[in-house]
């Protein structure tokens, strides 16, 4: 086996040193009736060439060369090659969690830079070293708010990503939480009247998403005021991190739970991604996940350590703030490099491009016969909801034939919207693609589309 660095002679010498005749002597503690005497029924050992072939075959069965307008929590943005060049360095890739600070300063400093950038972007005072993803991050943020307030009622906007809400429901089910979903108004934003009526002295938090699942941007300041008036916390979940390049950060929120996948992380059929929780400093002790902090060594030199680990499971055990153990260090590093590459100006310019592309796409697609832009009165970033005469399935079948993946059907979660699809246009979508999609929507006969 090519990954094993031993010759038969090495093995024999080691057995002799141990003082046994056969490797099976070392497994003697496993009762005989449970010892596996035959080969596992899995594929035979493959060469590297065969492995690559296997996965190439699989990749070829997926969509290839399609123009895609999918967003909905996973965004297709250009990934500068510098990112993979850096994260594939073995010193980052094959290092463990930086508990031994003296020999993991690279990872620790990068995490510290990540935490700083997340604070700058979100307008929060502190940020952790990352969570699994946006869905579990939102659930952890809610549990954090419950600990902070000592209350157990949770209000969740229906415009929060449906899968985030499902994950939250799974987390909350054995925590004795009382959860209520708040609907949305004509502009696709949380229904303020319904929310105001629902907030009570028992409300731990209000969880919203902005830009929300429909792509519209919530008025965080107003929502914060409503929540704070009753002593509840406002949690803002952000699925499209790039929006922060041009959308005002939710500074009025108490906790921000963000999915940073947009920042240089490939869609990768659903993960791994990079959640992160940022919040006001006064909630530090209730924050889940790892934290890197600055300190000094015995000579007074600056260095970084994982700190405040008493919040975590390996010390508190059943009293821990969360059972979270791993974070998403390598993915956080990708996002950190991405934020460094684009930086203060680039994120803004890129966000502006996204705004322009989505604006053009929304206008162009809504102008096709039988189509209508929903929630048009609220501000949006790079996503929008289109209502069509035909069903999402019919529309997408026609689009797929032209190697276009259209908007995501909302029927599964929002049947009340009829034939509604959620579209996303980023810097990856060319005008030709957008016009091509509009052409398919307009025409019955199939146009010829070339990807310029």
């Amino acid at each position, binding site marked *: 086996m090519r990954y094993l660095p031993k010759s038969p002679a090495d093995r024999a010498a080691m057995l002799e040193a141990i003082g046994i005749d056969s490797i099976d002597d070392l497994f003697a503690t496993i009762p005989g009736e449970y010892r596996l005497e035959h080969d596992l029924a899995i594929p035979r050992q493959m060469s590297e060439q065969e492995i690559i072939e296997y996965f190439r075959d699989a990749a070829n069965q997926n969509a290839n060369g399609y123009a895609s307008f999918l967003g909905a929590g996973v965004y297709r943005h250009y990934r500068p090659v510098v990112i993979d060049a850096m994260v594939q360095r073995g010193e980052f890739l094959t290092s463990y969690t930086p508990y031994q600070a003296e020999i993991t300063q690279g990872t620790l400093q990068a995490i510290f830079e990540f935490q700083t950038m997340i604070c700058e972007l979100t307008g929060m005072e502190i940020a952790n070293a990352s969570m699994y993803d946006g869905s579990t991050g939102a659930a952890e943020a809610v549990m954090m708010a419950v600990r902070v307030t000592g209350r157990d009622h949770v209000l969740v906007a229906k415009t929060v990503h449906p899968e985030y809400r499902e994950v939250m429901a799974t987390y909350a089910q054995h925590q004795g939480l009382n959860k209520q979903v708040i609907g949305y108004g004509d502009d696709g934003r949380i229904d303020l009247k319904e929310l105001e009526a629902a907030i009570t002295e028992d409300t731990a938090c209000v969880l919203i998403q902005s830009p929300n699942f429909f792509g519209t941007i919530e008025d965080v300041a107003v929502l914060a005021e409503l929540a704070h008036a009753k002593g509840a916390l406002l949690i803002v979940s952000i699925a499209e991190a790039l929006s922060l390049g041009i959308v005002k950060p939710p500074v009025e929120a108490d906790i921000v739970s963000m999915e940073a996948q947009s920042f240089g992380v490939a869609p990768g059929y659903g993960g791994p991604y990079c959640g992160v929780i940022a919040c006001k400093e006064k909630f530090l*002790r209730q924050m889940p996940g790892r934290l890197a902090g600055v300190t000094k060594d015995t000579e007074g030199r600056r260095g970084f350590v994982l700190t405040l*680990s*008493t919040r975590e499971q390996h*010390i*508190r055990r059943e*009293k821990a703030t969360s059972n979270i153990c791993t974070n998403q260090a390598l993915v956080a590093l990708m996002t950190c490099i991405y934020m460094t590459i684009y930086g203060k100006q680039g994120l803004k310019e890129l966000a502006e491009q996204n705004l322009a592309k989505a604006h053009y796409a929304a206008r162009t697609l809504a102008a096709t016969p039988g189509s209508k832009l929903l929630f048009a009165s609220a501000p949006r970033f790079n996503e929008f909801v289109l209502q069509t005469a035909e069903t999402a399935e019919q529309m997408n079948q026609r689009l797929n034939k032209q190697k276009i993946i259209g908007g995501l059907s909302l029927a599964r979660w929002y049947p009340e919207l009829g034939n509604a699809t959620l579209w996303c246009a980023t810097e990856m979508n060319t005008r030709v693609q957008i016009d091509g999609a509009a052409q398919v929507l307009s025409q019955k006969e199939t146009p010829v589309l070339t990807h310029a």
Partner: protein
Amino acid sequence: MAYPTKYRYTREHEWIQIDGQIGTIGITDYAQNSLGDIVFVEAPKVGATLEAGKTFGSVESVKAVSDLYSPVSGTVTEVNDALNAEPEKINTAAHDSWIVKVQLSKPSEVDALLSAADYEKFISEETAH
């Protein structure tokens, strides 16, 4: 380390000073010494109800968390906020660094607590193990 004779003690290493109906609670020098450098004290809020023998907060070092057990039952009247900024005060002067003050609801509970001499005997046995 001499343990002040005016205090009473618990087997969980808290001390309490009684002044009328008010009890002032901290942790002993023995406790701070075994915990090491203290980095955080989690105290209850003013108005919280404490029950004798039950946890009411915790003291943290870098790698350990120790629960605080209340010597008496009562209501918290005051919390030593100075420990937020300088938790290390407990390390330098455990017997002068109180954590909370409580209004006693069952003053007779104090009788069951250890005297300084009893406590010193108790910890010398514990150390011997």
